[in-house]
C-alpha cells in the first residue's frame, strides 16, 4: 500500500519535471532571433513536409466526415421534420468542433509521429551531436523550423477540412437526400457567426497546432537513441498529443461558450 503511494508520488514528481523540461525546451526553441535569410528556406521545407503532405489525409477525412454528418443529420432531423436545418447542423459541428479537433488528431497521427521519429532518428545516428560539435545549434536549425511549420500548418489544414466537410454534407444532404438547396445554405449562413464560430475555430486550431507540434518535437528530441526508444517516443507523442488536444478542446469550448 505504502509502496503504491510512493510510486504515485514519484511518478507525479517525474511528470512535473518532464513538463518543466518541456516548458524550458519550448522557451529555448521559440525565443531565438531568427536569421531570416537562412531561416526561411528551412521553414518552407518543413511547411512542405508537415503541411502539404498532410493535405491528402485531411481532405479525404473531411469529405467522409462531412458526408456522414449529412447522412446522420438528415436521418435524425427527419424525425422533427427539420431537414432544412441540415446546413446549420453540419456547419456548426464542423467549424466549431470537428474541424479543429479531428484535424489536430489526424495531424498528431501523421505529422506528429513523423516529426518524433525523424528527430529521434537524428539523435540516434549522432546527427544532432555532430551538429553541436560543429557549433551549430540544433534547436535553431532542426527543431525551430519544424515547430513553426506545425504552428502555421494546423489552422490552414483545419480550415480546408471544414470547407471540404461542409461540402461533403451538402453533397449527401442536398444532392442525395433531397434537402432543399436554398434552405441548406441560408439557414447555415444565418446560424454561423464569423466571430463566434469561425474565428473561435481558428483559435482552437492554432492552440492545438502548437500543442501537438511541441509534444512531437520534445518527445523526439528526448528519445532514447535506440530503436525501441524511438518507437516508444513516437507512440507517446501520438497518445499525449491526442489526449492534450481533447482536454484543451474542453477547456477552450467552455471559455468560448461563456464568451471571452
Amino acid at each position: 500500500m505504502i509502496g503504491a503511494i510512493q510510486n504515485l508520488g514519484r511518478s507525479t514528481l517525474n511528470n512535473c519535471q518532464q513538463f518543466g523540461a518541456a516548458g524550458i525546451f519550448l522557451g529555448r526553441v521559440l525565443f531565438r532571433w531568427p536569421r531570416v535569410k537562412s531561416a526561411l528556406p528551412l521553414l518552407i521545407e518543413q511547411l512542405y513536409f508537415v503541411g502539404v503532405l498532410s493535405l491528402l489525409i485531411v481532405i479525404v477525412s473531411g469529405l467522409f466526415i462531412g458526408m456522414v454528418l449529412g447522412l446522420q443529420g438528415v436521418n435524425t432531423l427527419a424525425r422533427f421534420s427539420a431537414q432544412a436545418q441540415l446546413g446549420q447542423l453540419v456547419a456548426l459541428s464542423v467549424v466549431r468542433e470537428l474541424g479543429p479537433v479531428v484535424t489536430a488528431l489526424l495531424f498528431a497521427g501523421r505529422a506528429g509521429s513523423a516529426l518524433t521519429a525523424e528527430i529521434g532518428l537524428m539523435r540516434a545516428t549522432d546527427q544532432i551531436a555532430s551538429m553541436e560539435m560543429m557549433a551549430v545549434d540544433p534547436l535553431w536549425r532542426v527543431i525551430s523550423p519544424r515547430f513553426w511549420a506545425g504552428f502555421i500548418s494546423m489552422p490552414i489544414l483545419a480550415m480546408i477540412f471544414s470547407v471540404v466537410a461542409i461540402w461533403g454534407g451538402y453533397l449527401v444532404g442536398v444532392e442525395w437526400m433531397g434537402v432543399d438547396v436554398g434552405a441548406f445554405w441560408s439557414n447555415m449562413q444565418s446560424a454561423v457567426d464569423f466571430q463566434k464560430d469561425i474565428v473561435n475555430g481558428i483559435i482552437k486550431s492554432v492552440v492545438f497546432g502548437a500543442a501537438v507540434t511541441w509534444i512531437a518535437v520534445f518527445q523526439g528530441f528526448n528519445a532514447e537513441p535506440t530503436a525501441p526508444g524511438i518507437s516508444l517516443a513516437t507512440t507517446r507523442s501520438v497518445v499525449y498529443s491526442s489526449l492534450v488536444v481533447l482536454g484543451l478542446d474542453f477547456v477552450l469550448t467552455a471559455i468560448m461558450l461563456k464568451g471571452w
Partner: protein
Amino acid sequence: MRNRFLELWVGLFMIAGFLALVYLATHVSGLTHFSDDGSYRLTAEFDNIGALKARAPVRVAGVTIGRVETIQLDEKNYRAVVKLLIDDGNKLPKDTAAHILTEGILGSNYISLAPGFEEIALVGGDVIATTHSAMILENLIGQLLFKVKEK
C-alpha cells in the same frame, strides 16, 4: 530545382488555406450580409420581444430586407429598444407597423413589417410608431385555461 518544387507546393498550400478562410467567411457565415453601407437604421420599441435575437431577419411580405442590429432595454419605460438595419433599396411608408412573429412552430423569432398607406417614407434614424409584441405561448395558454374555466 528541388527548392522550386517545394516552394510551389507550399505557396499553393497557403493560398488554399486563405481561400478556405474566405469561403468560410462569406458562404458559410453570413458575413457579407452584414455590411453597414447600403443600409439605414430604424428604431422600434416593443413591450415584449419574446425570443428575438440580434441578426434575426426583418421581412416584408416574407421577403428579407434587413436584419436586427441591436436589442437594448430602455431604463425609463422598461421597453425593449430594437435597432433595425434595412437595405437601402427598400422604402417603407411612415405608418409601417412592426410585428414579432415566429418561424413555423419550433422556429426563431423575426420581425415582420406591415407597410401602411402613407406617401412619405421612413428615413434613417426614424422610429416605427406602431409595434406589436411577440406572442408568448404561456400567456396564451393561461388565457385559454382561464376562458375554459370560466365556462
